[in-house]
């Protein structure tokens, strides 16, 4: 069935709720309202108010309560309305969700999936366009996933719900309703921790994820360049092997991401390439990313976010280096 990302995620949540009574959804406006992006539309009517829970407005409370539910054997899926409000839940994620398994040597675990919309491009107010994937990846103990389309979104989410770990599931707002894909009605999983080679090529490797996958694909198609596109899908833990295999084959690497350039996923990927594939490189590794500044207000965001022109120019430069 053709689905956009909103319906694919809704479908995954529906399956998860149907599969197990341990699964509960909680968050601000997730029930009656179906969420501000309508991702949880219809689920409260179907599964009841005690399984799709409209909570008080408190991100740390939502996340901390979800951690408690998980410790007690439920499998909560909290929604934080926007990633920009998730800083209020940061302490719970870093100090507790990420650490329970480690601090108790596996005797207490936090199986849960925290969903939140990320990224810009929808002309939203301040705090509604954040790209915090690296903040959660740096800690250790949290799995961080960011799908680039409806098929992966459903499969990765179902995989996340079946794991016994805390997963931060980042949903690019811009892609929510951008396009439709063929998505099976039944349950299926997409492996977490495994990158997806979207296009095989030999001239250069473009490593990307989330919102930047579409513009990268468009540019490669338009320019008819023989690029290999690697959608890493899982930010943490990184699928280093797939990245290195691609770079060793092409000899040229570019990392494209929407988050600020400095200390970003690009730095991590570039460092691993430098450590393990330097002598196979024919050109320096290149990063195309947002500028190293707080995400701007909507009138400025098109000046900040990497677009097809910037990606295209970078490809030309990398190929001529």
């Amino acid at each position, binding site marked *: 069935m053709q689905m956009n990302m909103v319906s694919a995620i809704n479908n995954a949540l529906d399956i998860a709720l149907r599969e197990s009574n341990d699964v509960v959804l909680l968050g601000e406006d997730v029930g009656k309202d179906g969420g501000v992006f309508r991702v949880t539309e219809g689920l409260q009517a179907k599964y009841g108010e005690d399984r799709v829970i409209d*909570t008080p407005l408190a991100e740390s409370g939502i996340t901390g309560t979800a951690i408690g539910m998980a410790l007690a054997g439920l499998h909560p899926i909290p929604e934080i309305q926007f990633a920009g409000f998730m800083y209020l839940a940061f302490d719970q994620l870093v100090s507790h969700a990420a650490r329970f398994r480690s601090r108790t040597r*596996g005797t207490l675990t936090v199986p849960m999936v925290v969903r939140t919309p990320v990224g810009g491009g929808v002309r939203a107010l301040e705090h509604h366009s954040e790209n915090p994937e690296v903040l959660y990846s740096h800690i250790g103990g949290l799995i961080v996933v960011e799908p680039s389309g409806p098929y992966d979104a459903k499969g990765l989410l179902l995989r996340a719900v079946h794991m016994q770990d805390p997963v931060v599931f980042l949903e690019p707002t811009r892609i929510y309703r951008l396009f439709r894909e063929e998505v099976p009605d039944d349950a299926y999983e997409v492996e977490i921790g495994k990158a997806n080679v979207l296009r095989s090529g030999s001239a250069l490797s473009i490593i990307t994820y989330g919102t930047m996958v579409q513009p990268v694909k468009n540019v490669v198609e338009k320019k008819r360049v023989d690029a290999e596109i690697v959608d890493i899908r899982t930010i943490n833990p990184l699928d280093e092997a797939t990245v290195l295999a691609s770079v060793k084959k092409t000899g040229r690497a570019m990392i494209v991401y929407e988050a600020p350039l400095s200390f970003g996923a690009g730095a991590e990927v570039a460092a691993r390439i430098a450590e393990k594939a330097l002598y196979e490189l024919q050109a320096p590794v290149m990063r195309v990313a947002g500028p190293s500044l707080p995400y701007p207000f909507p009138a400025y965001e098109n000046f900040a976010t990497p677009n097809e022109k910037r990606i295209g120019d970078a490809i030309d430069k990398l190929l001529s280096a």
Partner: protein
Amino acid sequence: MDENGNIDASLLPGDVDDAKMVSMYKYMLLTRALDAKILSLQRQGRAATYAPSLGEEAVHIGAAFAMRKQDFFVPNFRQHGMYIVRGFPLDRFVLYWKGVEEGDAIPKGFNGLSVSVPVSTQIPHGAGIAYAFKYRKQDAAVLTFVGDGGTSEGDFYEALNFAGVFKLPLITIIENNQWAISQPRSRQTAAKTLAQKGIAAGISCVQVDGNDMLAVYKAVRDAIANAKNGPTLIEAVTYRLSMHTTSDDPTKYRTDADVAAWQKKDPVARVKAYLAGKKQWDDAMEQKTAEEQQKQIDDAVAKAEAFKPDPRSMFENVYSFMPEVLKQEEDAAESANFWR
């Protein structure tokens, strides 16, 4: 029970008899002896930073005895008596305070969480566990602890608020020991009591003498009996006779006279006076118990000190699986002999 061990018999909970009181008193003694031992180990460099519970034993022992087996315990970091009464292995307890994660491993059926260092952040976990109990229609309550300082944190209020909205079986004990490291209770809030903070969340709240084991016992027992109807906030007014932790020097911010005034209200001495008055306890019993408990503690310390940390355990308990990139780091450290 007053400072001299006198009780108003009409208020004595019906399920507390002399035998139970003796048992509670013995746990107070064990808690205090273990507390002194770990403090001593820390001073010898044989334990990590430690947070003594001296003077606050009535809160922990009173609450622990009021709980049923199925009730769940969510600590911060000072509820040592609670761990002991609920059967946490003493050697593991010592191991935790030696700075070893294996000491934080929770035995099956313990019905409690590990130590939570960031104050008040554990209360939302209590709310979540209470939600799970209610959701599954389990007859169980959750007991959480927070200090007077912790009541200034946002998570304290967020959790109480959640518990109120969903009418969760969550009992939160404010262990008001008058000091948040160097700052007195008056620096935390202009509110007259800490208990009244529950009013804003629309939940039941009560203030008790936290140095009166029976008062704590009764308040917790009543709260558990009422847990199916919703949460309770209990402020137990007590006093931290010792330091915040072993890295704290209380002489910088409070006088000996302040401490001496509270020493007269010692929660353990008053139980002893009560039992002695009823001919249920004497010096010979005290001596015999001290010897038995010392043996128990020495055995626990010996077992804890025999533990050898395996660096691999750091890596192998982060995720439910071993990511390839983490495995590389583990193998690299081992093959380079960094751990030898």
